[in-house]
């Protein structure tokens, strides 16, 4: 510091006596009686409001300087808090200037008490918060925008999801059939689970349950592709294994790296029974449902769809006589977790023995059991489909 600068600094310090410091402080100061009547105000505040200390101290109260809305906040929050804690901090209020304009401020206040604990005076510091309030408003607007975007994204995801499964509960004459689809409760992403039921001819049907790896819009594209490819291929080819092989080629040649799992069942009517051809590709094996208590998983496996060039898929044939059926599901069921345990095959076997093999009851019961198992908080999608040749008589 030069000699001249040092002298100027010391002179300024002398001028900076407590009175100057009070009046010229870079914030507003007010003192009021415990019931709010203004008794003292500094020059800074007066200039901000466009008034004089005398005008402020002529019987007006602090609340009088606030907007009407601010007065309500003052009475319902500020004053009670001040009496409770003897201080309030960072209250956001707006003061009214003499010219009618508003001054956004942040207010700190302290209640001073005498030796007997009786309130004597309230000291209030007022900070100009014009810029901050503008910034806060922008933040609030941004938050509201984010919330509405999130709601819209959720709606979009749900709508898109609905296009990946049949629009109405499928009906196959001469077959009991029930389906359920439960998207994961959280997240805005479309899941990859899908199912489908469609006729090739009145006595020739195909049933599909599948799961595309991943979530989100690009997974949904593959899900739609898989669903419609299997529809087309089921018309072109007799066996489910051929339809899946076709999907394998389509997915391999697609630019996406995504693959899927699927269980495809071809059902052909045979009198009062159905002949089923089942092909499983990287998917949990379907359960055969029987009324004699001998229900259990099929021994059927196969490679994932969309990865291997020469993947071979196998068909398994079985006769679905009266009372016999199939249960298909995605891994959201077996891998439903709770505290380190999985729902697993045991959970499915238990559901079948509890709810029986009537498709509607079984599907509802199984979905309920899974939800209870993971405490109503499914982290993965669940698709379940059960079918059965009706019991005779």
């Amino acid at each position: 510091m030069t000699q001249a600068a040092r002298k100027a600094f010391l002179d300024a310090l002398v001028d900076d006596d407590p009175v100057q410091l009070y009046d010229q402080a870079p914030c507003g100061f007010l003192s009021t009686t415990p019931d709010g009547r203004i008794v003292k105000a500094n020059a800074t505040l007066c200039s901000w409001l466009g008034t004089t200390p005398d005008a402020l101290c002529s019987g007006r109260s602090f609340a009088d300087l606030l907007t009407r809305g601010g007065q309500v906040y003052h009475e319902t929050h500020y004053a009670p808090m001040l009496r409770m804690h003897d201080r309030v901090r960072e209250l956001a209020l707006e003061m009214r200037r003499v010219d009618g304009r508003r001054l956004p401020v942040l207010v700190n206040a302290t209640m001073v008490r005498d030796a007997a604990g009786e309130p004597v005076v309230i000291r209030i510091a007022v900070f100009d918060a014009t810029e901050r309030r503008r910034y806060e408003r922008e933040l609030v607007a941004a938050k509201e925008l984010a919330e509405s975007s999130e709601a819209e994204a959720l709606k979009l995801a749900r709508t898109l999801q609905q296009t990946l499964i049949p629009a109405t509960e499928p009906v196959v004459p001469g077959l009991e059939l029930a389906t359920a689809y439960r998207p994961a409760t959280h997240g805005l992403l479309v899941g990859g689970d899908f199912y489908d039921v469609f006729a090739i001819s009145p006595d020739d049907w195909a049933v599909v349950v599948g799961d595309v790896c991943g979530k989100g819009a690009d997974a949904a594209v593959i899900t739609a592709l898989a669903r419609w490819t299997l529809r087309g291929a089921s018309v072109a080819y007799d066996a489910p294994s051929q339809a899946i092989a076709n999907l394998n080629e389509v997915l391999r040649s697609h630019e996406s790296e995504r693959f899927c799992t699927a269980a495809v069942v071809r059902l052909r009517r045979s009198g009062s029974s159905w002949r089923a051809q089942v092909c499983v590709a990287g998917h949990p094996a379907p359960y055969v449902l029987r009324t004699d208590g001998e229900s259990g998983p099929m021994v059927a496996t196969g490679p994932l769809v969309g990865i291997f060039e020469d993947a071979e898929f196998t068909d398994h044939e079985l006769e679905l006589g009266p009372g016999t059926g199939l249960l298909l599901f995605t891994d959201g069921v077996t891998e439903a977790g709770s505290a380190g345990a999985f729902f697993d095959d045991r959970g499915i076997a238990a559901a079948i023995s509890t709810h029986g093999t009537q498709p509607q009851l079984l599907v509802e019961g199984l979905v309920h059991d899974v939800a209870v198992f993971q405490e109503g908080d499914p982290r993965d999608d669940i698709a379940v489909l059960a079918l059965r040749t009706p019991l005779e008589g």
Partner: protein
Amino acid sequence: MVDAVTRLNATVAGVAGGRPVIFAHGFGCDQHMWRHVAPHFVEDHRVVLFDYVGCGGSAGSAWDPARYSSLQGYAADVLDLVEELDLHDVVLVGHSVSSMIGALAVARRPERFGALVMVAPSPRYIDDPDRSYVGGFAAEDIEELLDSLASNYLGWSTAMAPVIMGNPERPELGAELTESFCRMDPAIARQWAQVTFLSDNRDDLAGVTVPTLVLQSTQDVIAPIEVGRYVHDAIPGSELVLLEATGHCPNLSAPESTVRAITDFVDRLPDRAGSTG
């Protein structure tokens, strides 16, 4: 739904057989608003304090935007409390908006109430020139209040929520609950403010058929003297007492005269047959 005592963080003190006095807090804070008043009644009365859902130590999970979309939902809470604690011949002391909640509760179940005390009441905050009514506020003022609430709840974070929303089973949180006095979930505060300040309960006042005391501060920017007079005139047989008090919360700023006025009124109430509470 959770029982009312738990839901509303109700506390019961005083004499078991005494006449029940329920203190109902107003918009903004919680039952601590009565801390200088309620203790004066425990010697002779059965004193019930509580927090409305969303306030103080109430069960925040019980918040239901549909139930609390009108003051009737709040009145239903008061009646649930009366029912559950099996209270009869109740003196209901309501501050601010709770005066109107009280009027609604009394009109619905007059047989349960012996008297109503309205502290700083207003049946309608917004002026109504068509009926030459001056409530003191314009519609824009209420928008300003909502803005003011939004600005002040900016710091309200979900991390604070469990503390603020109450945790009756964890008494060690008591200190934080005191710190959280007058703070609540901004969404709840906003809806309550809207319901409170946009309500029009003028026509409900005629339904108050029990002895009623109106306590009016001499200076109240929320409920001015004219409004207190209006309430007094609209409730047949009511008494109006002007308190030497400044502000909307005489229960905090002038507890002695508030206690004196209520005691004087309650002591003159007729004893009802079977009013053992």
